[in-house]
């Protein structure tokens, strides 16, 4: 029996005829925009990339092919949706998207070890990710199982003011997706009152202003097409007791969700099953956010995950650029019925500068994890 996927009869109506299933990356884009990479353990990823004028590096039509298994589409598109940078004294408050397309930095071979540069703006490479697994043989070498993992990385970098942002889409050989962004370059050099900063340089004269980077990603999940995809939230009740009990909440309507310890979400297609007949899903964890909450006129900072109905004009989490469309993600999420979910993830990082942040500032990362849940019936590797 295959370790992979099985299509089961449709559990809900097919998409309308005006909405054809997303074309496969292999048909949708050509060199150098097509990435089709089989990692050493047999995991294969296929996707298209594009540097868009506003969002910069965008991945589209992302498909995952577990080893010895049928391929499955995961994302119709994924991109940065905003970098909101409020300083601790209250001002300034930047929205760093911008035209990331024109801010893309020219990369060199040194920025892309072992990989290939495309159009000198995008690096496609693979790199080790440490242990994939380790299971001791209890003295029996033949029973010992160990493997080192690899990951495919598609990255671009942007110069926005004094900051350089390195934006990565990381596709693991375990089927995981890690979007993350690293801030480096230079500090602003803004002097502030001691309570809003940290002393840099000799003595206590210059207090560099602390600030947040609230980064939003937009992910349009289409698991084997847009039909039937549903977002669920999982909690585990029983705080201060011995037991934990699973609590599932289905988001049939647009939602603004908050992080909570142990909480996670998944996008599931009940019509696509693995060979155990469990529905295929991708799990979203957002546990590393500083959870910045701004004033009332920055309501987009008031939730950590937004689920909205697909709408082509809703592209940025704030300062959206389309006329006759919402301006920010908190307004997109207005209780509409969700049949084709788009997931927006807000990850905050509060940067309190330190002496080590002198030029060139060491990179600090923020991001989140998307992991397969029941995509295959067993560990295929």
């Amino acid at each position, binding site marked *: 029996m295959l370790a992979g996927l099985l299509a089961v009869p449709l559990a809900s109506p097919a998409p309308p005829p005006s909405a054809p299933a997303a074309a496969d990356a292999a048909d949708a884009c*050509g060199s150098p925009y097509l990435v089709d990479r089989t990692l050493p353990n047999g995991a294969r990823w296929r996707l298209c990339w594009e540097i868009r004028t506003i969002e910069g590096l965008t991945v589209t039509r992302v498909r995952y092919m577990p080893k010895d298994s049928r391929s499955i589409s995961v994302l119709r598109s994924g991109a940065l949706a905003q970098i909101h940078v409020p300083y601790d004294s209250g001002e300034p408050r*930047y929205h760093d998207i911008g035209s990331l397309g024109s801010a893309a930095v020219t990369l060199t071979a040194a920025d892309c070890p072992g990989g290939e540069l495309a159009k000198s703006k995008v690096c496609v490479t693979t790199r080790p990710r440490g242990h994939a697994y380790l299971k001791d043989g209890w003295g029996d070498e033949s029973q010992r199982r160990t493997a080192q993992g690899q990951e495919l990385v598609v990255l671009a970098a942007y110069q926005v003011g004094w900051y350089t942002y390195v934006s990565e889409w990381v596709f693991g050989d375990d089927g995981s997706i890690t979007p993350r962004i690293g801030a480096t370059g230079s500090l602003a050099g803004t002097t502030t009152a001691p309570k809003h900063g940290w002393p840099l340089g000799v003595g206590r004269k210059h207090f560099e202003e602390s600030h947040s980077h609230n980064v939003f990603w937009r992910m349009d999940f289409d698991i084997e097409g847009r039909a039937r995809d549903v977002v669920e939230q999982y909690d585990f009740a029983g705080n201060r007791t011995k037991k934990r009990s699973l609590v599932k909440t289905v988001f049939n309507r647009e939602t603004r969700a908050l992080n909570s310890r142990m909480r996670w979400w998944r996008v599931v297609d009940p019509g696509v099953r693995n060979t155990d007949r469990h529905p295929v899903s991708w799990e979203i964890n957002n546990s590393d956010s500083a959870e910045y909450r701004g004033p009332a006129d920055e309501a987009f900072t008031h939730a950590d995950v937004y689920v909205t109905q697909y709408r082509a004009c809703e592209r940025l989490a704030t300062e959206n650029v389309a006329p006759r469309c919402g301006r920010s993600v908190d307004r997109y999420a207005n209780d509409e019925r969700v049949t084709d979910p788009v997931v927006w993830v807000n990850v905050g990082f509060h940067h309190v500068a330190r002496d080590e942040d002198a030029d060139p500032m060491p990179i600090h990362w923020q991001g989140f994890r998307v992991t397969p849940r029941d995509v295959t019936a067993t560990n295929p590797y």
Partner: protein
Amino acid sequence: MRRGLVFAAAGLGTALLSGTLLIATSGEGPEAAQAVQESPAPGDPLTPEEIARAGEIATAGTHLKAEQAELLYVERDDDKDAEQARRAEAYIYDYGNDTLTVRTVDLGQSRVVEETTGRGVQPPPSRREELRAAELLLADPALGRGVRQSFMKAAGRELASPSDLALRGLIYSPERGPCRTHRCLRLFVRLPNGTFLDTSRIVLDLSAKRVHTLEW
């Protein structure tokens, strides 16, 4: 030089004349496919030829007053409901009435298939707008003097033109004040010695052709 209709399209490699329209390059643009001779796949970025053609189609027949409107840029339409067609979105800003018009061009049919217009919607600034904002900054007596002095100190020579400055603009779009509806920019200004001017309180209002200084 034809004065009047001046458009800047990001991503264009060449300037071309067409009827009453001058499309001028605004420096390096976003990712654009180089292989003009090969026909692009449906999900490939727009080619320079497609960007130029979409810009022409989107602005043809529009009666715009001199220097009142600008083609900011052309972007591939990635709407998954319109995957069969290769479409481009042209962002056109009219400073006269502070409206943004987005025209969707079907490149196969060579025509505009959709148009939306709105106020208070500000796409990111184009390269030309960044330069115009720097011109406004330099035209301000006190601020302009400050920029020139800082440049002299950093570079050891006089500032010859705004293009001597390394510029990056971000839209400033507050809930209140003139910039609620105007096209306002904040500029990051990098000097040749790698330092940045402190421009965080300075807002360049391209609609009113004014400089605002923020108070906080």
